[in-house]
């Protein structure tokens, strides 16, 4: 087989075009994230970084946005109404310094709620998001007792008007899902983070803890951060700065 000059140029031109386009295609694919038919993988570990110094006292924007996004409604009964995020105020007894910050499900690497669940309803997804499978939850509330962060709520009353992406019903346990529907959609943020940014505080940052190039990793590298109750060695996905 012989190849003339024109043919050679044609083939090499095509090869250059393919090699030039292929990396570009890959970049688009990475930016858009996972396709709907692809399963989650441990390549990602989703988490939050909460800067307590930026969290404003008395502001409940994150809680309101979370409950609006996920259709979490109560019945004006604070003792039993579900709460996915709580604003916790802590005070240093020696100095009297007070600060408040949001506490939600910490999406632990070793979640105690998963350990105690008798039915496997409480589980951790491959990308680190801890969820309740309400199809198998029997409402025993062991997970609520096991969670050191008081992150889970039991739905005591009949629910109506749920959001399509956030089913919730009486007799099951629920907690922060890290806006899993938004994560799967590729939004790369959560309702609480958006609301906090809108208020101008930017105290909540969502991101991939496994990606060295992500904003969350960069900020974790710059300043010291802590987990809540690091002594429990749960390796939480939610980290705090300025606590």
């Amino acid at each position, binding site marked *: 087989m012989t190849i003339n000059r024109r043919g050679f140029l044609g083939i090499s031109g095509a090869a250059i075009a393919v090699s030039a386009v292929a990396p570009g295609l890959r970049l688009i694919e990475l930016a858009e994230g996972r396709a*709907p038919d692809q399963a989650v993988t441990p390549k990602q570990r989703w988490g939050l970084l909460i800067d307590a110094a930026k969290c404003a006292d008395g502001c409940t924007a994150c809680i309101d946005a979370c409950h609006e996004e996920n259709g979490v409604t109560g019945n004006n009964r604070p003792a039993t109404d579900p709460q996915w995020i709580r604003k916790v105020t802590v005070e240093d007894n020696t100095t009297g310094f007070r600060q408040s910050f949001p506490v939600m499900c910490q999406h632990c690497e070793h979640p105690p709620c998963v350990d105690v669940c008798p039915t496997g309803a409480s589980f951790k*997804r491959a990308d680190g998001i801890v969820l309740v499978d309400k199809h198998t939850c029997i409402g025993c509330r062991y997970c609520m007792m096991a969670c050191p962060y008081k992150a889970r709520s039991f739905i005591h009353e009949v*629910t109506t008007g749920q959001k399509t992406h956030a089913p919730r*019903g009486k007799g099951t346990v629920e907690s922060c899902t890290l806006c899993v529907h938004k994560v799967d959609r590729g939004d790369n943020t959560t309702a609480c983070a958006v609301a906090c940014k809108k208020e101008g505080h930017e105290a909540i940052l969502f991101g991939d803890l496994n990606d060295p190039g992500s904003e969350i990793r960069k900020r974790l590298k710059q300043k010291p951060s802590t987990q809540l109750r690091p002594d429990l060695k749960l390796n939480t996905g939610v980290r705090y700065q300025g606590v």
Partner: protein
Amino acid sequence: MKRFTVGVFAGLFALSAAYAAEPAKTTRMPAPSIQINKDRGEQCVEPTEEMRRNHMNYILHQRDETMHRGIRTTKHSLKNCINCHANPKTGSVLGKDGFCASCHHYAAVKIDCFECHTDRAEKKAAIPAGRPRQALAPVIRTALGQPRQRHQP
């Protein structure tokens, strides 16, 4: 006495008339009123016969895939069922003319999907622009991998 006898006969006549009229008024459960939302297309995601018998298996399979593995394809999702089958008037699959409720009531099979899931179609659930109404291929593969001919009405 005569008046009493006439009364008894009149009563019996009335009763028999009522009894004779009874079969015309059926005592059976009314057949489910399945109202298909025509502007969503003529075909379901699987052949009609297949869906009638096995819809629960498709939903159950998809449920675990979505919940545990984050697979969010819409073909067999409950959300997709509701968006297509919600009654155009009420926007719901429940109620007297609801697609799910009327048939399940008829078959006396309790569904508890809607203890947690909403029974309403999404507000923005419009057909994406550029998608033809009958975009589905006439022959599709079932979960078992066997090609099946679509049920032609």
